């Protein structure tokens, strides 16, 4: 049997936002380890983490109609089931769309996403930059 079919999957609404650690990390430098650590993650409610059966720090793939990204997961008691949080940054921005509906503002909060357990690598900042450049 294809093992991938057995990977647990859940549907959530994702929001992004500032965290103190992301702020302090960016002031150290966007190329710093502190910045990458604080922004390449998703916070899940305890119920959702349970449903996925993952440990703290386990890797998940987040997919929306706009893109997909592999990030580390972290449990957050403050989140209700079905709501997930990504700190602002280039990892989160892989899965938010650019449509602004005449306002200039993309929808950075309130996007439907699928989250699944994953054993692919979390991309480095360099990988994301290469992704922006696309095929030469």
């Amino acid at each position, binding site marked *: 049997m294809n093992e991938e079919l057995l990977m647990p999957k859940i549907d959530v*609404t994702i929001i992004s936002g*500032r965290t103190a650690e992301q702020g302090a990390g960016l002031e150290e*430098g966007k190329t710093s380890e502190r910045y990458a650590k604080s922004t390449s993650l998703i916070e899940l409610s305890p119920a959702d983490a349970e449903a996925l059966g993952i440990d703290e720090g386990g890797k998940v793939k987040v997919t929306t109609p706009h893109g997909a990204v592999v990030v580390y997961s972290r449990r957050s*008691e403050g989140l209700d089931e079905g709501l997930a949080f990504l700190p602002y940054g280039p990892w989160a921005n892989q899965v938010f769309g650019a449509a602004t509906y005449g306002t200039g503002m993309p929808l950075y909060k309130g996007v439907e996403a699928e989250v699944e357990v994953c054993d692919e690598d979390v991309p480095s900042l360099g990988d994301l930059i290469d992704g922006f450049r696309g095929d030469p």
Partner: protein
Amino acid sequence: MVEHFDVVCPFCGCLCDDLEITVEGGEITGVKNACAISRSKFMNHGQNRLGLAVDGKEASLEGAIEEAAAVLAGAKRPLVYGLSSTDCGAIGRAVELAEVLGGVVDNTSSVCHGPTILALQQVGESKTTLGEVKNRADLVVFWGSNPTEAHMRHLIRYSAMPKGMYVPEGRKGRHIVAVDVRETRMARAADEFIKVDQGGDFELLLALRAAVRGVKLKAESVSGVPAESIAGLAGRMKAAKVGIVFFGLGLTQSEGRHMNIDAAVGLVEELNHHTKFLLSPMRGHFNVAGANSVTTWQTGYPYAVDFARGYPRYNPGEYTSVDLLAKGEADAAIIIASDPAATFPAEAVRHLAKIPVVTLDQKLTPTTMLSRVTIPIATAGVEAEGTAYRMDGVPLRLKKVLEPEEGLLPDEEVLEAIIGRVKTIKGEVE
């Protein structure tokens, strides 16, 4: 050893002006009164600094300025973007550059409180300074805003803890309410936490307004909030001596965007029939309010300004940076004190990666990695003086606490040099 007192922090819109910075042997060795982010900014300011380069190769300042001017002057639809983490002098020069180029000038408010500006232009604003909040507010509501992570000393200096003239008890004399979709640290620090469904702010604001007006809600709950909680908060708001709603990107970046702010203003307007009530956006970058102010006094508009016809036109949704990039319209860009490659959706960044980009910044960022020309600058508020506007519109003077490395100029001076070269290329007489 030199000690600098009353230093203004150049990180967030609070512009805390009570920092104490110690400098020894050309290095910052101590920071007092700062939050964790501010401390990181001052203590790590020398790390991961950007180099002067053209096409990834080391360049002279003159060479980089020449290439920057050539890239921009040769473009049909150049974009000038960023500006919220530099001083007002640089912002003025950026507007001038956009005019000389016949390009678009936009600032980071298009992806933070741009929707707030759209709403306030429609319906007005009941505004105040943070000093008034400190001295008078006995009810403080944080709506879709998390100062414990983003504006870390706001509660300590202005909105919760301080003893004010008419709030002599300080924290005990104020009722703090947090409205959010998740239980943040702010929610735990508040006296009352109201959890609203994601995307349900507009309906909740309208229901609150109705309750303030005396309407008895027929629904059992609105956006996940029980009717009795809504009635309770409405009553508390009406009974306040002076109340204020501080709102954040929870309102501007969710479905509804500017209409959420419109509804918040409507609620505050209704409350002013009963008591004094105010609202204030929690502005993020330290001089984003200045970017709006300077752009407005120079062009008449706060952001998303197009000079293609030789005079300023304003149209968020069309001349805003995410739209210009995602539609593939911009064919060159100059980014000042900002990192759109980290903050814009990937679809917009992929276009930025295709066009020639000039970036003025202090540090290496995803945007500098995608840039043809990178020009390091003297950091505003650390290595260069200047003026910045606090989130409530109060201008403060940024201090220079450290000599910049040799050859580093402030944003304003680099922009002046680029403008000069662009004018020459375009054949204009200075």
